[in-house]
């Protein structure tokens, strides 16, 4: 089997690893759609389309074989990771801008797959957070806390036309994530035990949020079992978070939330 150089070595194992990462994300994405609504699916779809288009464009500009690298699945993983970090009710251009900049600035300007010093999805997330703070911090509440109906049609209408069903107001139906909410309430003078009795909390990470994180943990364990990832980084990160949160919670339980809350919320 002789062929001409240059050879592309990576695609086989990269494709396998990326497919497994996508598979490991599916339960979490399904639960997130169930808990936070169809907006999650809209974000995922927009991010996927734009990420693949940007990947193809950048590969073309860099004169790399588009088909080979587009099929390795890495752009799909970036799109999914970015989309599930976004609030469920945002205009369509938010995931689009995020995915385009994640792939172009976060990945290909550094030399493409394997040369990027930051995780492209997280680079895209940070860019969005810096550029559009109001859109990025207003979350639709999970199912259990909703007093209104918000279907697929409503999500599509908001994402692509900016229209809300009559009688609903964006500031009234969105809220901060539990972590943001806790921080704001703490700086307003509340104590952790008081704040934790509010409906946004409860269970580990709050209704909805805790469930999504449990599914992500499950996916992570599956990736460990299939040896796609090694244990060092997740154990280091989550362990450090849990140890520090537990330590401070033990010292001053009124000012610092416990380890379980910190690990399971966002």
């Amino acid at each position, binding site marked *: 089997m002789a062929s001409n150089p240059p050879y592309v070595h990576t695609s086989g194992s990269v494709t396998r690893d990326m497919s497994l990462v996508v598979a490991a994300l599916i339960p979490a994405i399904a639960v997130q759609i169930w808990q936070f609504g169809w907006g999650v699916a809209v974000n995922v779809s927009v991010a996927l389309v734009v990420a693949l288009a940007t990947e193809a464009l950048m590969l073309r500009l860099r004169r790399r074989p588009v088909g080979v690298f587009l099929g390795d699945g890495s752009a799909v993983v970036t799109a999914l990771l970015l989309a599930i970090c976004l609030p469920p009710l945002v205009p369509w*251009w938010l995931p689009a*801008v995020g995915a385009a900049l994640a792939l172009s*600035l976060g990945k290909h300007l550094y030399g493409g797959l394997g040369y990027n010093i930051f995780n492209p999805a997280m680079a895209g997330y940070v*860019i969005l957070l*810096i*550029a*559009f*703070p109001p859109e990025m911090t207003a979350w639709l509440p999970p199912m259990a806390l909703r007093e209104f109906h918000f279907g697929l049609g409503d999500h599509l209408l908001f994402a692509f036309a900016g229209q809300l069903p009559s009688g609903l107001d964006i500031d009234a139906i969105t809220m901060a994530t539990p972590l943001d909410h806790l921080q704001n309430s703490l700086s307003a003078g509340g104590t952790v035990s008081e704040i934790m009795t509010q409906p946004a909390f409860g269970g580990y990470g709050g209704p909805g949020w805790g469930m999504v994180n449990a599914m992500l943990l499950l996916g992570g364990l599956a990736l460990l079992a299939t040896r796609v990832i090694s244990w060092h980084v997740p154990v280091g990160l989550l362990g450090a978070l849990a140890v520090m949160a537990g330590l401070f919670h033990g010292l001053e339980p009124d000012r610092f939330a416990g380890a379980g809350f910190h690990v399971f919320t966002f």
Partner: protein
Amino acid sequence: MSSTYGSIVRNGFWDNNPGLVQLLGLCPLLAVTTNVVNGLGLGLATVAVLVLSNITVSLIRSLVPQEVRIPVFVLVIASFVTAVELTMNAFFHDLYKILGIFIPLIVTNCVIIGRAEAFASKNRFRFALADGLAMGFGFTAVLVLLGGMRELLGQGTLLAQAHLMFGEAARGMTLHVFENYRGFLLAILPPGAFLGMGLLIALKNSIDGRLAARAARARRAEKVEGGAEASA
């Protein structure tokens, strides 16, 4: 002589551009270019200082002993910066307040001491004047370009607050390029300056690469033609 002036201008605007090639004066370049007017304001202030210091350094170059030339240049530059600062404070007070510390900081702009040392101290008055103008406006062009990119992306306008520089009559000069633009805050914030500058340098390198490739092709074609003629 015209070729000398031509190469001075070419150096200032392209081949040896203080912003894109020498990467001098990056601190004010990145900090004030949140819009076109700020960039233009700082650029023109830099042009004034650079031209005046280049002329003065060139005129006194035979009087200044080699050993103390740097302190003398710094003193000359500091005097002109102070003069420009006071002038701006008097006539463009609002713009002066916006540009703030970056006006007095022109004194530390490496472009100015760099041109004094590398060019003005070794060249005649009229070349030093041309070099000051070319380098100054080359720097201003980058400031305006980067300011324009960041203003357009960041808030969808061009020449916002033009009245600070051109007087009340210029209020209408502001172009609202995109109507109802949401704004891309990142472009206005410091990361936008670094990203924009990186993209501008990349664009210049890419253009240079294309020009070099085209020149090489033209040379090859000439050679082949010449060879064909010789064999015929």
